[in-house]
């Protein structure tokens, strides 16, 4: 069962544009929503994360928007740069006895053209 659905699978943006990646989840027990960035040949690295008690979190050019009622969250990359070209994964987890297990979306390959 795919509990986190991510779209689009691939995205092409011009330099300076806004990149938007969306995720939807099913499990209302999820209470932690991170985004990971992965460059070719490397492991994913934590980019930014949000908890459901806030609707938005911004770190530099990266913003997470969170809609609890719709069970959706999205990553916005402002002023996209060629160096942002990477694969992005959304994920979700819940505390308690889950042992911190993350459920990942399918990934989005972002290409930013100069």
């Amino acid at each position, binding site marked *: 069962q795919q509990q986190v659905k*991510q779209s689009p*699978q691939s995205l092409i943006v011009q330099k300076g544009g806004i990149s938007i990646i969306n995720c939807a989840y099913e499990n209302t027990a999820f*209470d*932690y929503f*991170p985004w*990971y960035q992965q460059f070719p*040949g*490397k*492991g*994913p*690295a*934590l980019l930014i*994360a949000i*908890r459901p008690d806030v609707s938005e979190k911004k770190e530099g050019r990266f913003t997470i928007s969170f809609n609890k009622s719709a069970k959706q969250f999205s990553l916005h990359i402002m002023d996209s740069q060629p160096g942002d070209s990477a694969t992005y*994964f959304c994920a979700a*987890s819940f*505390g308690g006895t889950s*042992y*911190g*297990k*993350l*459920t*990942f*979306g*399918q*990934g989005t390959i972002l290409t930013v053209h100069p």
Partner: protein
Amino acid sequence: DAGITQSPRHKVTETGTPVTLRCHQTENHRYMYWYRQDPGHGLRLIHYSYGVKDTDKGEVSDGYSVSRSKTEDFLLTLESATSSQTSVYFCAISRGGNYGYTFGSGTRLTVV
């Protein structure tokens, strides 16, 4: 990434042979995870560990086993490798709760 290493980085093996991948951490984190990454599927959890000798199955555990005899080492074994297990395998560590993961650099496994 600093604090977590995977070995080998690349491996080609024949169908039916056993294969063991190693994950080693120096962060003393309690939780360790093995994921596989395949196009269109994202990262899927194979097995995880919540302490020495404490392990459990993830969503794609068939054909895999794990062992954790020390805090720092988490081994993933493919008991009899099949072509469907050709993938990139990532180990991750975490302090647990909602602290997120630190991933290793991955092992690219090809089963021929």
